[in-house]
């Protein structure tokens, strides 16, 4: 069962990374306009014309 010594911290670290990413996205306002985010990805203004 020695494998637990690094498997458990790894599992927790992965979970915490996900949580931290979520908190960051929340703080940067990514949940303020959910419908907008869904349609904005269709716009390709950011690409230079060929």
């Amino acid at each position: 069962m020695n494998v637990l010594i690094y498997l458990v911290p790894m599992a927790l670290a992965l979970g915490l990374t996900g949580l931290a990413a979520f908190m960051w996205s929340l703080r940067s306002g990514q949940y303020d306009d959910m419908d907008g985010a869904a349609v904005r990805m269709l716009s390709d203004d950011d690409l230079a014309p060929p």
Partner: protein
Amino acid sequence: MAEAVDLSMFVTRDAAGHAHMNLAVDGIGCANCIRKIENGLKQTPGIVEARVNFTDRRLSVDWHDGEVTAGEVIQALERIGYQAHPFQPARVESDEAQHARWLLKCLALAGFAAMNVMLLSVSVWSGNASDMTPETRDLFHWLSALIALPVAAYAGQPFFQSALRALRARQVNMDVPISIGVVLALGMSLVETATHAEHAYFDSAIMLLFFLLCGRYLDHAMQRKTRAVAGNLAALKAETAHRFDTGSEVVTVPAAALHPDDRLLVRPGERVPADGVIVSGSSEIDESLLTGETARRSIAPGAVVYAGSLNFSGALTMRVTAAGAGTLIDDVQRLLDKALSSKSHIVRLADRAAGYYAPVVHTAAALTALGWLVAGASLHDAIVTGIAVLIITCPCALALAIPAVQVVASGALFRSGVIINAGDAIERLAEVDTIVFDKTGTLTLPEPRVHNAALIEPELLESAARLALSSRHPLATALAREARQRTPFEGAVEQPGQGVRALIDGVEARLGSAAFCGIAEDAKTVENAGTSIIVYAHGGRSARFEIQQKLRPDAKAVMKSLATLGFDLQILSGDRPAAVDPIAKALGIWAWRGGLKPADKIAHVESLKQEGRRVLMVGDGLNDAPALAAAHVSLSPISAADITQAQADAVFLSERLVPVLEALIIARRARGLMLQNLWLAVVYNVIAVPIAMAGHVTPLIAAAAMSGSSILVTLNALRARRRAANRMPQASTPAVPIAAPRPA
């Protein structure tokens, strides 16, 4: 508009010299609109940032102060092709946005903890069946505690706070048993872990929080969405006023920026923007939005006018008096206060359920512990079994049963064009047995229409209607609604107080009074109190248009359906009985009264309540506001007076009356599902509690039972999604509001 527009009350400035404004934008419908608006505005010199919020149909703009003005921003948007209306976000909205973020944070934390604790718990469960050593199990339990305890302390706060509030008010709501359950489950698990016991319930407690937070967040999101739509509609409706600034210069300002003693100009065809006293000018005003009376009142200097009256014939100068100075408003306000104070006793279904549930479950848990003690079990075992009863009965399904239906039903109502103001409106709508309608503006359309359009040659009607586009007179506005082509004739001239004329195909056409058109009065079509005549002459041909209040297009069909559904229908109107009678006859409603004052309306509603009826009041006038507040539940059309709309439990957006019917059908179905869900939760408890009492509940069983019942209840709630289409009198066009988010 030639005169200056003062929008300064909507603009906020920061230290860096940037100005900021929020706008509700009409007609944002697709991804392309976002790009068009944002890019179009950013090309305007001076504008720093433009960001569209597609969910709320709103736009926030920042610009260098001094380089552009707020009015120019709106003009720039108009050039791009969008109507924008500035607004100040209500304080409530920003508070709610903050609350939503907090709930989302709690939800994320609970989700993280639930996943990780479950990871550990599943290992323990499978380990118990195979070869896990007690030391490893203890380690996993301690790890679970390490994750679960801090998370529960943070993410449980929405429930703990609400439970404390309720207890302080000496009431019980659903959050009280939830909080007790969570705290006891965590506390017992901690003690069990410390004593190296086999079972810990960290996963159940955290999962419970996670499920409940999901429900709470969705409920809150739905409320915010409807509030945003209501905010946009208020911005679109926002009245402007023409204020005399220094000297005789007239500035257009938002009505919200008016102060007492401001002097205002009210042109014909405009609504009076504030309460006040007439200083000069004389006119006729239509107060039907306030009193329901359709006959016009003539006013002269010194007369008191109220916000919302429509100025008919002459330009008026008025002085603003402090809000509520008028006797009518005072009367309404006093009745309102009284009605509101008697309304607070309505208890929500969920809290009623909690009131039954909490004592029963807590007694059952105590009896279980006592029973085991008497039967000779150790104190520790007895308490653990008692707490297991609490955990298994912890009202996960019960707490989700009502909010889940509420969210889904609010969405269905939203798609039908009904916006819910009050949280428990759906429950109360479902209990209604008597419906009381106001007449003017509720059963009839808020604006008058041409009554005899079908009898007039289409070609003549069309040219008259197009000519009417050039006039602001209310009668002409009514006629202009009939125009198919929305371009006015060039060179049309309006002669104030008389009519409008233009050259059409080289021949002069006139629209206005009979004298203005050079036509003799016709004895058969004299004006009476309910009907106004406007005459059109073009070449040798002429037509008389009878303009009057018209029933909403589907009023008859809706009344018939409501009567078929068993509702008792009544009309209470402030208008003269002679004007109410034909409408009541046409709709087949026999119980009607006319000429009522606000106090009479509220008295009638109270007497219906005394008979034990549940009254739905549908009204739009200021005079309806007290009756709306006194009724069991109330609805208003979006055209209603502001005070009235604030009282209504829900607002409908359509020109049709069918949203009233749909709201009732959806609410009844929703209440049915709520009760069904409560029974599901009860059945679940009836099965689970004996198992818990017998002491057979393992953490695995608790987790499976809890998630199983929650999912069952939520799936059942989704059935409230269906629209009321199958029972509609006619196919109803979806009443999608202007500037409203797309129904999700």
